[in-house]
């Protein structure tokens, strides 16, 4: 019952929250004193980054670990990992795009050699590598195992990359740009909007993941139909 309800409601609630975020972000919240309307990216960029880095990559990693673990080794886990990684790649790209759009007027450049930017790009390449590996081999089992290992290997790099942010900064001052407190005066309404955006994008992630998963299952079902055909055809090869 609960399950059914949540299934029904996930999509609509996500849409409502997203609409609310945009309404609050575009019309209700005031423009920033320094950055003007540009600061409205605050309601998109951090939320997108949160989904990309932690939510979807994390889901993919946990699902992969569960797949490798003998007792829970199931196709479901492999599928979840695969789908979450795809969603993650999309959100990483969105993070890079929104960040770049923000960076161009804010810092005058599209890209800076900041640890956070670099680490985000690196994570993106990890995701691409993962997806590339998935198409590199015919053997389904091998594929699943290898990509699960890649996801886990990628995940140990996340903390390393994460900590290197601080170390890098302490060594190279001036590269740090992420000081929202300095650039924004976070009013109550802005903070609320920020949180709503986080919630909205979180739900969006789950929604996308579920849809992607459904598509994957459908694809596999279609494959199974063509598979029966292939089996019949192969068997016919024997009879002359």
């Amino acid at each position, binding site marked *: 019952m609960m399950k059914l309800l949540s299934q029904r409601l996930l999509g609509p609630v996500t849409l409502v929250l997203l609409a609310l975020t945009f309404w609050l972000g575009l019309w209700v919240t005031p423009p920033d004193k320094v950055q003007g309307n540009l600061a409205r990216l605050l309601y998109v960029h951090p939320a997108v980054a949160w989904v990309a880095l932690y939510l979807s990559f994390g889901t993919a990693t946990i699902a992969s670990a569960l797949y490798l673990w003998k007792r829970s080794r199931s196709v479901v886990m492999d599928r979840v990992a695969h789908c979450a990684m795809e969603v993650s790649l999309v959100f990483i790209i969105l993070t890079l795009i929104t960040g*770049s759009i923000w960076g161009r007027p804010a810092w005058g*450049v*599209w*890209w*800076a*050699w*900041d640890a956070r930017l*670099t680490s985000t*790009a*690196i994570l993106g*390449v990890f995701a*691409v*590598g993962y*997806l*590339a590996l998935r*198409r*590199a081999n015919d053997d389904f089992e091998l594929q699943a195992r290898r990509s699960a290992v890649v996801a886990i290997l990628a995940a140990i790099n996340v903390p390393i990359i994460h900590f290197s942010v601080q170390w890098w900064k302490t060594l*190279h001052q001036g*590269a740090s740009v992420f000081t929202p407190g300095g650039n924004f005066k976070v009013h109550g309404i802005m903070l609320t909007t920020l949180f709503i955006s986080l919630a909205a994008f979180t739900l969006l992630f789950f929604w996308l993941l579920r849809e992607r998963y459904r598509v994957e299952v459908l694809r596999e079902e279609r494959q199974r139909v063509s598979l029966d055909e292939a089996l019949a055809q192969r068997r016919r090869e024997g009879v002359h």
Partner: protein
Amino acid sequence: MIRTAWLVAVKDLRIEQRSRVLLWQVLPFGVMALVLSGLALGPTHAGHSSAGPGLFYLVMLLVALLMINRSQVIEGSPGTRASVATLGLDPAGVFLGKALALAVELWLTGLVLLGGAVLVLHTALAGTLSALPSVVVTLGALAAAGTLYGALTGGGQGPVTLLPVLSLPAFAPLLIAGERSFSAALHGGALWRWWLISLVALVAYLGIGILLYGVLEES
């Protein structure tokens, strides 16, 4: 010769397209290498856009090494080489075809990486655009030279690691010429002189290849 060249180029590109190595493997590698070399230099050096052309060409060189390697791998096992040898293809045509296929791949990668350089290394967009003809010629020369050196080291599976050693000294002048004319395009300067060097190198390598490729082929 032209017919053979076309045949070979189409074959190579079809194999490449089928295996999607360019899209899924070479391009991400290029992007990654660009980012990494930026990292290795640290923000002080890489932040300067003056390092842009050099890094771009360095990465293109590494990408080219991968692709030359691949261009030899798809020629297949010794058995395949033996039978293809019995087709009696015109070696000049084979050379041109393989060089063309390689050039197409390098141009595609170069385009993406130039975009990356603009975004990541802050090379100016206008200057980058005006460097385009020189980049095209330089990458073409790289493809021609690479095909020659690929044939030199191809064949057995042993000497794959030999390729970088042999080809890097030959690529160095190309790298310098390309970097100079790219820099000139960015900051003003004698663009055409360096451009001309690349052009001469392209013509020279094409000529040498057409004349000598037959000598290099698997005996």
